[in-house]
């Protein structure tokens, strides 16, 4: 870790996170600590429990055991919407846009907690309603422009091409004003060219929004290309952690991905 960060409390600190689904142990004793500004990757074969970790961080699943500390506050037991409001934005593995609404509405919905007016303002059409609404539109349009989606503004979300839908999801997550952004397989189903664009974009939003990013990915190219630290999971457990170079040479990781004996062959 960087010397500057020594002694600073990490932005996100996960300790002993465990999740059982009935008798199935999906995640066991998962530890992770992310400092502000880092870009951390979480990789592992299918079914390793990566998304379950995400769902526990964001409160969709209640952890069986363990703590998730964000800015020093234990998030376990918070409702998902409360966790989002503390500053964690996320995207989903299988795109979950509000598919029958326009792209702009998709982004505007994420501004709801910060809308700054009550329902009565909207019923009575007060000047505050119009002012805030205009602000929300401007902020949403700014985000769309940053994500290069301006021309799709009034399109229905489900009509967008796949890559654009992913970008809308990221724009929507950014609208939650997160400090920590969780990206769940952002490159799934993308071709090599789109992946290059995606990597540029992740760098771009990270610098422009001063974000800390935790990312789940299958595509080694993405992970090795942009992550500073990588944690590898298999069967719910951490099997390795380190920087990309270390991970690439780790025999356990090669074994998890390619099978027993592959490490020797390589």
């Amino acid at each position, binding site marked *: 870790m960087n010397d500057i960060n020594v002694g600073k409390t990490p932005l996100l600190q996960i300790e002993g996170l465990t999740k059982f689904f009935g008798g199935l142990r999906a995640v066991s004793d998962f530890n992770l600590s992310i400092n502000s500004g880092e870009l951390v990757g979480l990789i592992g074969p299918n079914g390793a429990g990566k998304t379950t970790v995400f769902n526990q961080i*964001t*409160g*969709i699943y209640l952890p069986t055991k363990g703590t998730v500390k964000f800015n020093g506050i234990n998030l376990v*037991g*918070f*409702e*998902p*919407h409360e966790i*989002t*409001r503390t500053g964690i*934005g996320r995207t*989903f593995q299988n795109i*979950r*846009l*509000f*598919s*029958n*609404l326009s792209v*702009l*509405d998709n982004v*505007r*919905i*994420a501004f*709801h*907690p910060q*809308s700054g*007016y009550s*329902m009565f*303002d*909207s*019923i*009575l*059409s007060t000047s505050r*309603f119009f002012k*805030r*609404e205009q602000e*929300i*539109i*401007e902020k949403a*349009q*700014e985000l*769309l*422009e*940053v*994500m*290069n989606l*301006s*021309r799709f*503004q*009034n399109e229905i979300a489900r009509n967008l091409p796949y890559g654009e839908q992913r*970008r809308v999801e990221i724009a*929507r997550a950014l*609208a*939650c004003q997160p400090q920590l952004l969780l990206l769940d397989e952002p490159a799934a189903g993308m071709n090599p060219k789109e992946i290059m*664009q*995606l990597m*540029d*974009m992740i760098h*771009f*939003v990270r610098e422009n929004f001063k974000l800390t990013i935790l990312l789940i990915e299958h595509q080694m190219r993405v992970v090795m290309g942009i992550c500073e630290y990588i944690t590898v999971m298999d069967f719910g457990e951490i099997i390795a952690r380190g920087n990309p170079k270390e991970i690439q040479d780790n025999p356990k990781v090669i074994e998890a991905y390619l099978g027993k004996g592959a490490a020797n062959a390589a």
Partner: protein
Amino acid sequence: MDITAMIFSLVKIVAVIAYLYGLLWVLGVKLKKVEIAGKLVDPSLGVNIFGGVIAFGVIQLALTKFNGFSLLNDFDSGLLYQACTMTMVALGLNLIYGFNGQFSLGQWGFYGIGAYTAADITYRWVNGDSRGLVVVGVGVIIGGLVILLIGKFLSNLRRMPVLSSFTLYLIGSILAGVVAVYAGKLAAPLLDPFLGDSLNKGVLAQGLPMQVVFFLAVVFAGIFAAEVSFLFGLPVLSLGSDYFGIATLGFSIVVYTLMVNSDTILPFPEMKGGRGMIGIPKLTTWFWAFLFLVLVIVIMRNIIRSSTGRSILSVREDETAARSMGIDVARTKLMSFVIGSFFAGIGGGVYAHFIGFLSPGAFDFLVGFNPLIIIVFGGLGSMTGTITASFGWIFFLEGMLREILGKISPEAPSWRYVLYPLTLLLLMLVRPQGLLGSVEWGFLKSKIIPLRKSETREGVNNHE
């Protein structure tokens, strides 16, 4: 078959739909700001209100008798009022089901609650008892305050099981109800000099006493229905969609049963149980029907276009994603359910005072499918569709078919329950998304936000 009668009733349907679209158009007219005496003035609101008044006046004129003849007879005005109340109920249900995605069969129950509550207030009033108004008024206000207070208190507690918070709310509301009844009974004699009643006019009751009482009765009925829906919705809305539907069906049946036994189980002998409540003053005029209809439309449209409305839509689209966007899904569901029931309660209040007779049969859960059919017919998630379908449905089923079939034989009108399902079947085959899908018109149309003027800002460099 009488061809002219058929054409005439068809023309009536077309005319009323055209009228509605005109009304929606004139309410939504936007004009450029004009300069009057050096000041920029937006004339739109003035035009909208003026247009609304004209729209009201047109029908009012058609209803007024000149030399014993009016363009629209009593039968037509009945249809109009019926259509107005049906629109309010259906709009409420569309908010719950069409916009928020919660399949509810309980709307008819809240409609019934509204109807009986409002009817009881005015019935007592014309019989010289002002306690009905005072008790219900105090009750809904105290009940609302208690619910708000408990809500404030509970918001500090985390992950409270829904049944525990429900128990708290229930105890709070029951206590509020008891307090309201006693406070109302004590206060009524003291207030009588001010309020007066039908026999002795009080200070406040000069001028238009019945009209004011009627207005208060309808509003209180709406709030009462909303409070009941809050208590009912709190535990039940945590169920998934289909289960919620079954639970609300149960609610409708409970309300129906209570109505049938209102004079035995409930202490309201004036409701006369299954025999039906008679003697309700017929206070609904075109003015009130129109006013409440426009109020409901305006309130609902203003909610839908706001951030709250978008959060309601997001819950329908994807609950998990909505949660992850910081939207309190449980609260949003409850809110739309309560607002929808409020509209139903108001619709019930207006209905009770034009029909003048309430029988539990009118609130049977089978009849309760009508608003559901209407919103599916008009298009889930389209207010314009709901309004069109409500008026079209009433004027087609109760107006056209009854009139035409009635000319064939006295028994023939029963055939309309064969004809309209066939119409429904046909429409669903041809247009499964409903008459209007999710298209809106005029006033209800959401403004298309223009694309942003591109300031050459450094965006993500990822398109060729």
